[in-house]
């Protein structure tokens, strides 16, 4: 394993056998996943519900044994050194994991104690995190009374109280309102800046886009694409400029005119608008406007479109992540 890698999997597989009406059904939840996560990055694992994200995470956090394959986490062998790995990783499950019969302070102290921290030190760390995540006003109330956002803050604090090298967050912002989500994105970025590697799963495109340095897209238990957000988008997506005009004749004329320029890769007419595909749309936007102005075209609208991760997903899987649109 290279020095900069904190996590690496080779052909990681998980199959479940379920019985239905006496016949055995083999479910391949994860079909040979290869992942590489570098130290210090925010790595995203993007995919729809049921794609195998949580199952992969359960394997990487030593909760379930892989059916096949190898993995190294924090430099240790997942199959042989699970016990040691647990000292160095943090995990916040989708459900959260806080003890609702205790308050935030008690929760945090116990979690620290389970990592072998002394009573005094555990209380100090609990206080620090209560301060940091602004939990003071509710820290001494039972966790069962917390709002979604408050509970999520406690969950995150529990996941990092022992200063793990890498923290796994399973759908960290699912079910939160936009404000809380923005708060969490900021906090996750801060934790990351302080040196903790973050591995998060999500089915929110915005989350993957805003938060992650690199990501892998998983669908039906298989990785369909891996790379930085920009690289993934560039790989499939062409940027485009969409120009709206009043008459179809104007559009045809503009099309002929702009077709002469080499940087316009492709173009087509869609109703009363002209769609131009080009490599770097932003760079050529002004130039195109000047050309059209010189020839006295009257523009009604102009828009610049960049490929989204959804386009990437659509291209790789044939389905959209947004509300199950088909290609």
């Amino acid at each position, binding site marked *: 394993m290279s020095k900069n890698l904190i996590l690496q999997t080779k052909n990681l597989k998980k199959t479940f056998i379920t019985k239905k009406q006496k016949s055995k059904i083999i479910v391949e939840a994860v079909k040979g996943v290869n992942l590489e996560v570098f130290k210090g990055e925010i790595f995203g694992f993007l995919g729809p519900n049921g794609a195998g994200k949580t199952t992969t995470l359960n394997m990487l956090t030593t909760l379930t044994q892989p059916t096949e394959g190898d993995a190294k986490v924090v430099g240790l062998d997942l199959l042989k050194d699970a016990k040691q790995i647990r000292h160095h990783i943090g995990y916040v*499950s989708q459900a959260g*994991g806080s003890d609702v019969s*205790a308050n935030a302070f008690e929760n945090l102290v116990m979690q620290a104690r389970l990592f072998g921290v002394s009573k005094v030190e555990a209380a100090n760390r609990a206080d620090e995190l209560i301060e940091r995540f602004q939990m003071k006003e509710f820290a001494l109330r039972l966790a069962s009374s917390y709002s979604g956002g408050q509970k999520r803050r406690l969950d995150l604090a529990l996941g990092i109280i022992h200063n793990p090298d890498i923290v796994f967050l399973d759908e960290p912002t699912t079910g939160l309102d936009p404000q809380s989500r923005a708060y969490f994105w900021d906090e996750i970025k801060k934790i990351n800046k302080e040196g903790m590697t973050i591995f998060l799963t999500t089915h929110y495109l915005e989350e993957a886009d805003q938060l992650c340095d690199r990501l892998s897209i998983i669908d039906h238990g298989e990785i369909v694409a891996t790379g930085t957000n920009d690289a993934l988008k560039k790989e499939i997506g062409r940027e485009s400029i969409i120009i709206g005009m009043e008459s179809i004749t104007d559009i045809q004329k503009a099309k002929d005119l702009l077709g002469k320029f080499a940087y316009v890769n492709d173009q087509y007419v869609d109703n009363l608008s002209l769609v131009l595909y080009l490599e770097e749309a932003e760079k050529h936007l002004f130039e195109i406007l000047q050309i059209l102005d010189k020839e006295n075209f009257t523009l009604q609208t102009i828009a610049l479109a960049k490929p989204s991760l959804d386009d990437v997903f659509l291209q790789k899987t044939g389905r959209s992540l947004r509300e199950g649109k088909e290609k």
Partner: protein
Amino acid sequence: MKNIQDIQILFIRNLKKTFKSPWWMIGLAQPILYLLLYMPLLKNIGGTAALSIAQIAQIFVPGMLVIMGISNLFAGFGFIPEIRTGYIARLLVSPVSRTAIMASLILNQLVSFGMQAIVLTFIAFILGLRVTFLGLALTFILILLIGASMSALSYVISIGTKNETGLATIVNTIYLPVMLLSGILLPISLAPDWLKKLAHINPFYYAVEATRSLFLGHYGDRVVLEGFAVMIVFIILFSWIAVRSLKNMTT
């Protein structure tokens, strides 16, 4: 060392949780109801000569203690919500051993159960029960073994089903025949032959017979040995399976 400290931390947390909710007091009320509302019915069971309440207690209280031990099959009802909140998964990803997690759960269950058993015995004493200290001490060891193995079994079922309805169905299916076939409510010696034979394949039959012998001061009876042997096998078997199922738990 780390294990013992972890068991301690988790055990204290479990105790706090148990006594924070008022439900444990209702658990205490149940054996009292059995003593006050059921035991008097047994008065005329011996035919013309009515039994004294002390005599009845000597037969009935041991069975009652065993039944309460078996009731630990319901332990999972407090455990399944902890799986659902992700709390158990959090422990499983921490350096705490699976053995420590299971031990702290079972120990906590034994505290609640032990308190119930003490209350029951105490009230029975007031009603006239007489038993030797050794007999009572050995009985308590035996029923704690029952309580521990049944709570372990309950956790295994909980991890398997992960929902209360499934647990309730399975536990009730086990509970009723086990109770009826152990001679808990009445001695199996009153039963017809075929029922006696059937009772002999019920492991708890031996436990009930053993506790009755202990209450009478017959420590050397074969049934005492059989009762302990069965329950020692149970505790080893079920706690082993319980730790294993935590290891393979999917969340």
